């Protein structure tokens, strides 16, 4: 019986946990609940993935109203892949969180912090599994509002301004999305994504549909921080609490990528978007710009966390590059990089949280020689950095290998060259960290530091280990990504 309710339980379990945390008003109880719902989300999304891995989809009608009159949850392998990713990251971050929360959040706010975390998780999972355009907006807002608060809870006062800027840009993005959905609704009369796709074929006047495509693209691009709409991201990531940065960096932008793909392939249709329209070329330009410009900016950052935040903008460029190539290989590369980058960046930000806890500072100037006093943390960061560069036997290599192949398939060796060349920029900024951490003499303050606590190291290293493992054994990640890409490309059934 329970297996037929998995799609809704995935979202509702964290949603119910949130008010319970407020009623209990205890930081410790809230943390226990947060761990419970995160692992429940992992288990449920895993079970869902198994259900749909062979193809096909699971439909769940809320309130037993048939679609398109009611709201439908529609899970195919693409949704399940994303939900599984969110589940994995949530499970790891929830274990990691207590030490960093203890250090960064005042006691009276801790249960509120976990409430927001549960809501954010629920919102992201809700976006990932819904089959209804407006319901997607509602859950987008749940995840957005909670992430604004989570970011603002950072210790630095700049976290407040970062959260405010994210609130403004995020709301503009969401409003653009609603305008796009409104046009699609006025043109087709339905809000159900599958129904919309079917009825769009019968719409004779293409202008509203084109405008809707533009509005949804811009709106979602704001949320996924596609260059040059990334302005909110560096500060938000740099000044948010450590656990929040890791969680959001690994999930929020990735879920937005999913939304874009879902609209491109399952609503508008891949051939319309990429063959009849120059969307592929437009995305290509912005992706390449992201890869080079954001990486270059990253090199000149003084704050380590901010440097890796800019690196995220660049890495999002690789994902959208895969999308822009609009082929089976390209899409697989993009989707596998969604997973791989989530693992890598999640691990990196978790490890940086260890430095924040011990050193209390993230500037290059004040962590010289830290590699000698926090060897495990820093070695983990180096391994994660290698994955960012794309060294063989890391997940980053797998993504780039497929990107290069997709570029060559398309007959554009210069794109393949650009992928490799931009990796050199990643090498430069990762080297900067290595140089500061290992080749500088630690001053008295740094020498007095201790290694990060095991409760933080173990989850972070679990992700680093995953980065290496999935860099060698690619069956699961590539298999999932390829199945998802195939599901998207063959279009609605």
């Amino acid at each position: 019986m329970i297996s037929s309710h998995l799609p809704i339980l995935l979202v509702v379990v964290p949603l119910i946990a949130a008010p319970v945390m407020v009623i209990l008003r205890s930081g410790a109880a809230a943390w226990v609940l947060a761990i419970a719902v995160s692992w429940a989300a992992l288990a449920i999304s895993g079970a869902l993935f198994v259900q749909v891995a062979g193809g096909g989809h699971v439909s769940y009608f809320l309130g037993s109203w048939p679609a398109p009159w009611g709201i439908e949850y529609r899970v195919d392998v693409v949704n399940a892949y994303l939900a599984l990713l969110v589940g994995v990251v949530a499970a790891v971050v929830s274990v990691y969180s207590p030490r960093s929360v203890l250090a960064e959040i005042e006691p009276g706010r801790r249960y509120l912090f976990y409430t927001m975390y549960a809501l954010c998780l629920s919102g992201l999972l809700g976006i990932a599994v819904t089959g209804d355009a407006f319901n997607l907006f509602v859950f987008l807002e749940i995840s957005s509002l909670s992430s604004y608060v989570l970011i603002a809870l950072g210790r630095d006062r700049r976290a407040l301004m970062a959260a405010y800027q994210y609130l403004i840009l995020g709301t503009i993005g969401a409003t653009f999305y609603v305008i796009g959905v409104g046009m699609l609704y006025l043109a087709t009369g339905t809000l159900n994504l599958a129904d919309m796709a079917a009825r769009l074929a019968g719409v004779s006047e293409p202008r509203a549909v084109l405008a809707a495509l533009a509005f949804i693209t811009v709106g979602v691009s704001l949320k996924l921080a596609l260059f040059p709409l990334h302005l909110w991201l560096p500060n938000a990531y740099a000044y948010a609490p450590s656990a929040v940065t890791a969680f959001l960096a690994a999930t929020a932008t990735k879920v937005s990528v999913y939304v874009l793909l879902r609209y491109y392939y399952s609503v508008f249709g891949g051939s319309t978007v990429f063959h009849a329209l120059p969307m592929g070329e437009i995305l290509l330009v912005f992706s390449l710009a992201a890869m080079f410009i954001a990486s270059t900016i990253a090199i000149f950052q003084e704050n380590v966390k901010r440097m890796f935040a800019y690196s995220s903008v660049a890495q999002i460029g690789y994902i959208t590059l895969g999308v822009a190539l609009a082929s089976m290989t390209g899409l697989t590369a993009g989707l596998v990089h969604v997973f791989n980058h989530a693992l890598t960046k999640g691990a990196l930000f978790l490890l940086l949280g260890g430095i924040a806890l011990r050193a209390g500072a993230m500037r290059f100037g004040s962590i010289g020689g830290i590699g000698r006093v926090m060897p495990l943390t820093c070695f983990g960061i180096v391994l994660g950095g290698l994955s960012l560069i794309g060294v063989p036997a890391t997940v980053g290599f797998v993504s780039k290998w497929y990107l290069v192949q997709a570029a060559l398939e398309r007959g554009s060796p210069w794109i393949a060259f650009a992928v490799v060349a931009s990796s050199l920029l990643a090498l430069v900024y990762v080297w900067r960290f290595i140089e500061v951490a290992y080749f500088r003499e630690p001053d008295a303050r740094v020498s007095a530091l201790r290694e990060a606590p095991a409760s933080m190291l173990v989850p972070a290293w679990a992700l680093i280990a995953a980065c290496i493992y999935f860099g060698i054994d690619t069956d699961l990640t590539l298999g999932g990504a390829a199945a998802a890409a195939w599901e998207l490309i063959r279009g609605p059934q």
Partner: protein
Amino acid sequence: MTFASHYGYWVTIFLAIAGLYIVVARGNLVKKLVGLSIFQTSVYLLYIAPGKLIGGTAPIVADGFQVYSNPLPHVLILTAIVVGIATLALGLALVVRIKEAYGSIEEDEILAAERGD
């Protein structure tokens, strides 16, 4: 597809432009939020205006009425209004905290202060 039959949309468009302009151009954090609200309100009309039918009435089923305006956009916009006020409340809470932390609610002054951090 005549120009005149779409005049209602022009109000939406004007409000969207004005709202977006306030958000992007103004440096005052409170005024930005007001602009954001106006931008969001423009969407209400986009959804609701086309739902009306001539000779129609509010969608409350009663004897003697056959034509009703479209209820679905009403529901969606009720949700959108609530989301809008939730965002505004959160935004204002942030502004209050920013004022306490920086002593200003002007973007230029705050960015200048951040450079000094």
